[in-house]
C-alpha cells in the first residue's frame, strides 16, 4: 500500500470511529485514575513539601526557599551530583556503543540468532534487580570471582567495591552490562534500513566501513536518539545497584553516593522529607533540562528518512 493510500485510509478511519472514542476513554480510565491518584497527586504534595520543613511525624511547616538555598552549601549533595554525572556520562555512551556493536554483529544473520539475542538481553531483565546487585558484590569482592580469575594470571586485584577509587567503576560496568534493551531496539532499527541503499553503495564501490558510516549510522540516528534519551533518564535515577552494593550508605567514603540514594538517606534516614522533596524536584529539573537539550541538539544530528 502506498503512503498516500495509507494516509487516506487512516483519515477515513478517523471519520467513522467517533462513537468509539467513548470506548477508548473508558479503556484508558484505569490509567487516568492511576495517573491522578498515584502520580500527579503525590507529585503535587511533594512540590508543596519541598517548600517546608517536614519530618514525617509532625505537621510540615512552611519555610519558603530554605531547602533550595541549603543545597548550595550541602557538600554531600555536591558529591552526589559528581557521582551521578560521572555515572551518566561514562556509562550511557559505553552502554550504547556496546549495544550498537552487538546489534550490528547479530544483524548479519548469524545462526542461532534468537538464542544470542535472548542471551544478550538477559542481563537487562535482571540487571537492575536486587539479586544481581548481591551477586555483583560477591563477584567483585577482594576474594571474589574476578580476583580469583586475575590470580590465575598472577595479578592481585583490589577489593573492587570496597576501594573508593574503583567502587563507582564497578557500578558503571554493571550498568554497561545491561545493554540488552537498547540492543534490541537497535536491532529493530537496523531491520528498517532498506537493503537497496547498501546495494547502491556497494555498486559504487563503498567499503563495509563506508557503508556503516554513510548509510547505517545516518539512518539509525532516530533510534540512537531514542535510546540516548531513555538511557540518560534511567541513569540519572539509578538507585538499586548502589543501595545494595554499598548497603545503603553510598560508601566507601561516599564514592557511590548516587543522587537518588542521598535523597533516600535524607528522607528516611534523617527524617528530612522537606529537603528530600526539594531534591526530587531538582532531579526532575536536571533530567528535564537534559532531555530538552537532547531534543534541541537532535535537530542538528538526527536524520528522519521520511
Amino acid at each position, binding site marked *: 500500500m502506498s503512503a498516500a493510500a495509507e494516509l487516506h485510509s487512516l483519515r477515513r478511519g478517523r471519520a467513522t470511529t467517533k462513537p468509539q472514542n467513548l470506548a477508548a476513554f473508558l479503556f484508558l480510565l484505569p490509567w487516568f485514575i492511576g495517573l491522578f491518584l498515584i502520580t500527579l497527586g503525590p507529585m503535587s504534595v511533594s512540590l508543596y513539601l519541598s517548600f517546608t520543613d517536614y*519530618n*514525617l*511525624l*509532625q505537621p510540615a511547616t512552611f519555610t519558603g526557599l530554605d531547602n533550595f538555598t541549603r543545597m548550595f552549601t550541602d557538600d554531600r549533595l555536591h558529591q552526589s551530583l559528581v557521582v551521578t554525572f560521572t555515572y551518566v556520562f561514562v556509562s550511557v555512551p559505553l552502554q550504547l556503543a556496546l549495544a550498537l556493536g552487538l546489534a550490528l554483529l547479530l544483524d548479519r544473520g548469524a545462526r542461532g540468532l534468537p538464542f544470542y539475542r535472548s542471551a544478550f538481553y538477559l542481563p537487562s531483565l535482571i540487571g537492575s534487580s536486587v539479586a544481581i546487585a548481591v551477586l555483583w*558484590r560477591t563477584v567483585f*569482592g*577482594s576474594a571474589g570471582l574476578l580476583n580469583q580469575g586475575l590470580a590465575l594470571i598472577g595479578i592481585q586485584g*583490589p*577489593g573492587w*567495591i*570496597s*576501594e*573508593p577509587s574503583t567502587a563507582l567503576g564497578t557500578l558503571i560496568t554493571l550498568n554497561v552490562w545491561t545493554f540488552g534493551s537498547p540492543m534490541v531496539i537497535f536491532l529493530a532499527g537496523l531491520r528498517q534500513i532498506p537493503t537497496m541503499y547498501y546495494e547502491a553503495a556497494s555498486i559504487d564501490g563503498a567499503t563495509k566501513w563506508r557503508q556503516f558510516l554513510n548509510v547505517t549510522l545516518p539512518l539509525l540516528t532516530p533510534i540512537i536518539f531514542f535510546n540516548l534519551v531513555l538511557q540518560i533518564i534511567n541513569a540519572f535515577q539509578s538507585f538499586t545497584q548502589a543501595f545494595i552494593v*554499598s*548497603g*545503603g*550508605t553510598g*560508601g*566507601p*567514603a*561516599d564514592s557511590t553516593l548516587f543522587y537518588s540514594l542521598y535523597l533516600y*538517606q535524607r528522607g*528516611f*534516614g*534523617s*527524617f*528530612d522529607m522537606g529537603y528530600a522533596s526539594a531534591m526530587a524536584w531538582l532531579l526532575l529539573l536536571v533530567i528535564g533540562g537534559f532531555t530538552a537539550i537532547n531534543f534541541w541538539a537532535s535537530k542538528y544530528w538526527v536524520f528522519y528518512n521520511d
Partner: protein
Amino acid sequence: MRSVSIRRMGAGAVALATGAALAACGTSGGADVEVSEEPVTIRVTWWGSDARAELTNEAIAAFEKEYPNITVEGEFKDWGGYWDALATTTAANDSPDVIQMDELYLASYGDRGTLLDLNEAADLIDTSQFDEAALATGQIDGAQYAMPIGVGVPAGVVNADLFEEYGVEIPDDSTWTWDDYAAIAEELTEASDGAINGSSVTGGNDVGSVKYWARLHDNELFGEGGKVTLDPEVLASMWQYNLDLIESGGAESAAQAVESLNAGVGAGSLATGKIAMGFAYNTQITALKEASGADLRLVQLPGSGEVDANFFKPSMYWAASSQSDNPAEAALFIDFMVNYEAAAEILGTERGIPANNEMREFVSGNLSETDALAVDYMNSVVPGTPPVVTPNGGSGVEPMIQRYTQEVYFGQSSPEDAAQALIDELQAEVDAAQ
C-alpha cells in the same frame, strides 16, 4: 503493687496531672489506657531474622492464651526496611500498636510525641525487676517511652585457635592497654607471615567503639539536651591509633574493613578467620562462633582495667504507639514479653540478655554454651555511668561515623579535619530536629 512505688506514684501523679490537662483541652492523642473486656486486636512489629519471627510468634501464641480476648497480629521486616515502614506508617497515623525500638531512634520518635509514655500504663507494666539504670535507657525527660528488652556490652573478641596456631599468648585482659593491643596485633601478623592480620580496625565501624574510646578519655559522645560533647582531639586520636595499626600491618586494610563491615557479623573478618582480634558486642558471640567454628572468646576491652569506660547498651526495646486505639492491651503485651516466665522460656536470649533481673536468672538455668559466654562476660564487666540516649535527630550517627572513618582510613582527610567535620555535621543534624 510491688516495690519502687515512690517513683511510680510520682510518675503517676505527673501522668494524672497531664492527663487532666489534656482532657481539659479535649485532645488526648490516643484512647484512654483502660483494659477492654471486648475482643481487641493489636499489631506488633519488629525487625530481625526468621528465627526471631518464629520465637516471637510462639510467644504471641502464649500471650493470646493468657489473654483470650486479645488477638495479636505480628509483622516483621529486615532492619533497613523496618525503619522506612515505621516512619511511613507513623506519618499515615497507622502505626502498629507495639513497636520494637532501637536506642538510635528512641528519641527521634519519643520527642515527636509518637510513643506512649508507659508511665500512663504504670499499673499494667511491672518495672520492679529492672535496675534503675536499665529503665533509664528507655526514658527521655522523665517519660518512659520504652521498656528495655535486653542488653549488650561492647567486648573484645579473640580467636584462640589462631593465637595457638601462630604461637602467640592470649594476653591478660584485666590489665592490657591499647599499646599492648597494638603490639600483640603486630606480633600476630608477623607470626602468620601475613596470612592473617592481628586485628580489625577497632574504631569507627560502629557507634559503640567511639563511645568507648571517648569514655576512656573522660569524654562522652552525647551530653544532655542534644549536645554533641565529643572532643575532636579524642576522636582524632582514635583514628590516628587505627591508622598507625593499619600502617604497621597489625590491622587489616581499610578496604578489607569496608568489606567486612558490609558482609555483616556472620561473614566478616572475625567470622572468616582473617583476623585474630576484634571489637564486637557480647551477644554477637553466638553468631560469630556459629559462623567461624573456631574457639572465639570474649575478653575485656583494652584500657577497661584502668577506667570503667564500658557500658550496657540496650539491645532493643518494646514501645507502644501513642496513636494506638488500644494502649492498655499494648501495655499488657509489653508486660508479658518482658516479665513473664512463659515468654522468657520461649524467647531465651535471642533479643539479648534479658534486662529483667528475674528473667535473666530464669533463662540462665538452661543456656547454650555461647549464651553462657555472653552472660559470663556481662557479669564480669564493671560499667561506668550509663551514656545519654541518642538525641532526636541523631539516628544517623552510625553511618555518619562510618563515612568519616572511611575518609580517614583511605587517606582522603586528616583525622583532625574529619573529627571537626563530623562533630559539626552531627550537631547540625541534631539541632535541625529540635
